[in-house]
């Protein structure tokens, strides 16, 4: 037992600090991906509601493709494709070759996947807002941007939150794939520790538990945000309109 604690200690002899650092990178990658995925996902949802058929078709195709491809394949496509593309651009100016950045590639790839799923969530949330809300805003003389910001967005957030929370938990787990393209995230640091200590089961189990801790902490944060977003509903004494979160 003490032998295992020794392995996890903080400092040059133990692997505790390395693994926590890896967990930090995992968390940083997920946090950096989130805004990218949310903004792109929202834009896609708007495109899917637009009057232009081309725009609708493109957004639809994007969402279908990136939800069907393995995340790992998307990641490799972005990583190697981005590398070839950057190299081609760079060759116009200099002879130096570059190495693609695992963090950025992971951010883009996971962001694309997140956006594809998020656009589904937003589209469903848009569908759940009654037309009367738009009409009412229009009758009050609100401009489109005001309608969106003051009337639609607050309701949209409440309706989309359970789905988005689910996507966040999926994203947190998907970051582990980026260890395959040389990013020193939690899983990669664990592999380094395993390579030195020859204690694979123990270290991978600890890594799994660290992922679980991140998921549990996220759940608490999500619950707090959900309560906040539903505060107006509760005051009216109505039951939460978003029962459960059955969005897979």
């Amino acid at each position, binding site marked *: 037992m003490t032998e295992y604690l020794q392995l996890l200690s903080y400092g040059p002899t133990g692997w505790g600090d390395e693994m926590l650092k890896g967990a930090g990178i995992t968390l940083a990658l997920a946090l950096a991906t989130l805004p990218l995925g949310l903004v792109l996902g929202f834009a896609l949802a708007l495109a899917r509601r637009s009057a232009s058929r081309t725009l609708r078709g493109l957004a639809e195709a994007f969402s279908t493709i990136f939800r069907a491809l393995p995340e790992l394949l998307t990641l490799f496509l972005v990583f190697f494709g981005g590398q070839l593309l950057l190299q081609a651009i760079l060759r116009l100016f200099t002879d130096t070759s570059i190495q693609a950045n695992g963090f950025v590639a992971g951010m883009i790839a996971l962001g694309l996947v997140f956006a594809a799923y998020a656009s589904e969530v937003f589209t469903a949330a848009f569908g759940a807002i009654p037309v009367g809300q738009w009409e009412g805003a229009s009758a009050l003389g609100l401009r489109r941007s005001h309608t969106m910001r003051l009337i639609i967005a607050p309701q949209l957030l409440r309706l989309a939150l359970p789905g988005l929370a689910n996507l966040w938990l999926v994203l947190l*787990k998907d970051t582990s794939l980026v260890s395959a393209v040389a990013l020193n995230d939690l*899983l990669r640091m664990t592999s380094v520790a395993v390579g030195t200590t020859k204690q694979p089961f123990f270290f991978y189990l600890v890594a799994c538990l660290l992922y679980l801790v991140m998921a549990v902490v996220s759940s608490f944060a999500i619950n707090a945000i959900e309560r906040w977003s539903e505060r107006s509903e509760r005051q009216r004494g109505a039951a939460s309109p978003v029962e459960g979160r059955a969005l897979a």
Partner: protein
Amino acid sequence: MRYGLRLLEGLLVTVQLVAISFVLGVLLAIPIALARLSQNPILRGVSYAYVYFFRGTPLLAQLFLIYYGAGQFRSAFEAAGLWQFFRDAYFCSVLAFSLNTAAYEAEIFRGAIRAVPRGQWEAARSLGLHWWPTWRRVVLPQAAIVALRPMGNDLILLIKASAVASIVTVFDLMGETRRAFSRSYDLSIYLYAAILYLMLVEIIRRVWNLMEQRLTRHLRRETKPSPTEAAGLVSVVD
């Protein structure tokens, strides 16, 4: 297309891997779902912990835990004659995917069984049906309708997730793609692989739509006139 055949071989491995894991996972999910619904707090606690662990951690970490982690117990596995199994990346992938999928399916089954109203059990009981006919004829057909769509979603998720097997040297579609790319540096190989994955997912989607139509055939309104009406044997009252 020099690597075309290789990719198709990889596709076959992917299909095999997913099919075996999904069937094993579904079988394993049934007892887990029943344990989740049981009155016994120990069974409930253990099954809850199982589901929470496998749904809360990345599949890749689980795969590493099994494939590399087994090495830590090599002598014990050798003594038990199991080392042949745990040495093989393919078998370890099947094990990891089955255990992972079982956790997801168990939650679906639990929800589907609970979605069948109590009155259905009570009515079957008052008709004097034993538990097995009740289960087989009353509860299961109704639960299946609820469970089918999320199960299809999970199968698609498993197909996508199975690509991680390539990281532990299984030459599935992703593994063959990576090997071909590392030799040729031709990015279009990834695009061909993407098309194959898309086709696989689309086939599953269509098969699932057909299955759903069959399971819900009694719920659909007849839009066309039935054959007897069409033949004028029954007059349509309007």
